[in-house]
């Protein structure tokens, strides 16, 4: 963690010294031959990376890309067969886990040494000392706030969730808004992510070290739940149906003063199609801390690529080179505002400040534990009654633990 705090500012320093290399011949990826088959999620930044990688196609190199929202469900079986259907799987810190668990992706150390000159050290995702993925973009939730509303209410920009509550009270008391807060509390993936974020802020671990035993039924777990519910006091009564996309709509309508929202959606909140009055007063900051913790209470995410194990070394080399080209400094220079890139030469735009402040604040990455997904699922279904005010925090934690343990036993972790 200490090493990290020094790397990120260094990264940003390097980013400031942007070197525009966009003039280099586009399609020369240096690949002799091979077949590149990419499987990725379907959103703009990844479509750009895919199409840049597709430029590497030549007489002896074929490049195809399949961008689909179902990638997480397809990747397992698609990489299990030999030869694998796809040579490249684009993943994030949650979706890499199932590939690691099943041993479907190969270590990249040799390829990095041979073809990875343009990669920065902090792009390398290593597991047990072996590079297993190359990250090219970062994302996290962070604080969105309305500078005008905070000013009128006479409160400073909050830095902790306790201050967020106080600020919300002040805004309500000043008669500015009845429901100044919002969060993605929709039961399912979103609600579970909210819990994970808040709990990360306490600095505590989710599991007993070295085992799959759940460790959240402690004082910090209770405090996390109590805070999540305390915030709902200041939220629109429909808060249990809000996901991240709805949050942006609410924000755009001027209904919210402070929220923790995805950095990848920050551009839309201030972009050309946003409500100009709101956008002008929208500001971003690091995610708040929680419960006396010193780091932002939020998980950091990366998106990156992995190379399948069950393919020939030739295809692996070709795929690696094509993907390095796909997420190269040229790509980033041509599309600076599409994502918070981790690639050399990226100059953060105004919409990226929140993610960078959160990373610099020392927030922790979303855990890559093999059974983290099971906990996420358990949280996604068992917290709804608590958030609706129908059960108490102890009961909610007990339910989560019971659901998680059942799933972990079925999956062979307990």
């Amino acid at each position, binding site marked *: *963690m200490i090493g*990290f705090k020094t790397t990120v500012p260094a990264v940003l320093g390097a980013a400031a010294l942007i070197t525009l290399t966009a003039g280099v011949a586009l399609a020369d990826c240096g690949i002799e031959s091979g077949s590149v088959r990419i499987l990725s999620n379907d959103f703009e930044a990844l479509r750009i990376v895919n199409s840049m990688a597709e430029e590497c196609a030549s007489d002896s190199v074929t490049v195809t890309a399949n961008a689909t929202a*179902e990638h997480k469900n397809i990747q397992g079986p698609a990489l299990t067969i030999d030869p694998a259907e796809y040579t490249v799987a684009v993943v994030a*810190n*949650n*979706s890499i*886990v*199932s590939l*690691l*668990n099943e041993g479907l992706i190969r270590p990249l150390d040799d390829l990095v040494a041979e073809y990875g000159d343009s990669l920065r050290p*902090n*792009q390398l995702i*290593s*597991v*047990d000392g072996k590079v297993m993925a190359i*990250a090219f973009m*970062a994302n996290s939730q962070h604080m969105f706030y309305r500078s005008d509303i905070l000013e009128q209410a006479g409160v400073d920009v909050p830095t902790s969730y306790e201050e967020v509550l106080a600020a919300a009270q002040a805004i309500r008391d000043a008669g500015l808004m009845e429901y100044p807060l919002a969060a993605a509390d*929709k*039961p*399912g*993936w979103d609600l579970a992510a909210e819990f994970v974020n808040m709990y990360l802020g306490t600095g505590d671990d989710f*599991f007993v*070290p*070295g085992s799959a035993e759940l460790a959240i039924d402690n004082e910090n777990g209770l405090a996390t739940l109590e805070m999540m519910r305390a915030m709902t006091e200041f939220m629109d*009564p*429909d808060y249990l*149906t*809000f*996901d991240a996309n709805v949050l942006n709509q609410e924000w755009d*309508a001027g209904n919210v003063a402070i929220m923790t929202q995805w950095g990848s959606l920050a551009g839309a909140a201030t972009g050309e199609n946003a409500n100009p009055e709101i956008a002008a007063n929208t500001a971003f900051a690091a995610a708040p801390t929680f419960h006396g913790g010193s780091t932002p209470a939020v998980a*950091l995410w*990366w998106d990156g690529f992995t190379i399948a194990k069950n393919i020939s070394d030739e295809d692996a080399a070709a795929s690696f080179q094509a993907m390095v080209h796909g997420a190269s400094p040229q790509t980033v220079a041509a599309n600076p505002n599409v994502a918070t890139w*981790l690639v050399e030469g990226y100059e953060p735009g105004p919409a990226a400040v929140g993610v960078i402040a959160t*990373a610099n604040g020392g927030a*922790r*990455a979303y855990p*890559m534990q*093999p059974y983290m*997904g*099971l906990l*996420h*699922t358990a949280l*996604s*279904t*068992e917290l*709804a*009654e608590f*958030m609706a005010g129908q*059960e108490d925090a102890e*009961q909610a934690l007990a*339910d989560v633990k*019971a*659901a998680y343990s*059942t*799933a972990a*036993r*079925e*999956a*062979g*972790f307990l």
Partner: protein
Amino acid sequence: MPHKTFFWFILPSVVAMILFIALPIASVVIQSVYVEHERVLVEVENCGPFGCSTEVRVDTEATEQLRSEQPLGRFNGLGTYLNRAHLAVEEVGTIVSTSASIGEALTRIYNLPFYKAFLFTLIYCFVVTPLGIMLGFTIALAVNTIPRLLKGPVIFFSLLPMIITPLIGSLILYWMFSSNGILGATLQTLFNDPTLTLRQSPALTWITLLVYGVWTAAPFSFVVFYAGLQTVPGDTLESAMIDGASRWERVRFVIIPHLAPLATFVGLVQLMDNFRVFEPIVGFSSEASATSLSWLVFNDLVGQDSQAFGSAAATSVITILGVVILLTPVLIRTWRDFNAKGA
């Protein structure tokens, strides 16, 4: 029909169904009685753009070895069916023995994910099916009396709720029912309650889902009944009139009996479809107040980061059994009809 002829006629259908439905069901059933091998875990240091941390990884080689010895996993019998995520036998036992009153016991049982989903599925099934059929029947009766020229367009607009892909249909209705949406806002004005929101309380959410269910289910019944009405023999109706039967009596004693076999067909299809209710729950973002068996399967298989095949398999098998139990009366009826035909 001789066996041989029958065989050749039915062969393509049966082959398709065996390959793509029966075999997968068999494998699902087998899967549901196994759980995965114990994973061999190793503590390692993971590093990324945001620093290093000590985490755990699965020793894939060691796990692979276990797997090659027993490819299906560890035999678990009915364990998966009885665990907390499904029938929760143990938990229900504890609840029953430690609860002070029946009410408390039921509340605590309802807190278990399977029973929460099961209750909504059943209620949805038993409310939407009859109401949908009745609404469809009423529309069919009404449309049957309007001038011929108008019938075409009316039938066409009546089919719309069935046609629009639920993916978007429920998204739009979700917005309409929100407190800023046209229906939500109108209801607020009607009841003169600016804080009224349909998605706040479980009861209102359920009502919204049930109304949506009836709305999408009615057109199917309507089309089938409307067609059926065209075949009601005119002379029977006329003789009923001569006997002095009132309008209502004609519907009650001539039309309804005539349409009864059709109602069986519609009821069969609709009961089954409603038991598998899934789209409106996601579309209306109502997971907090209402889930269904199909939603549980979806959540296990595709909704999350980790896939729980065994668990989804068990829920699917329970769904099939549920449908079979629901349809038993219809099946018995079909059996009688069939025997009558065979004779």
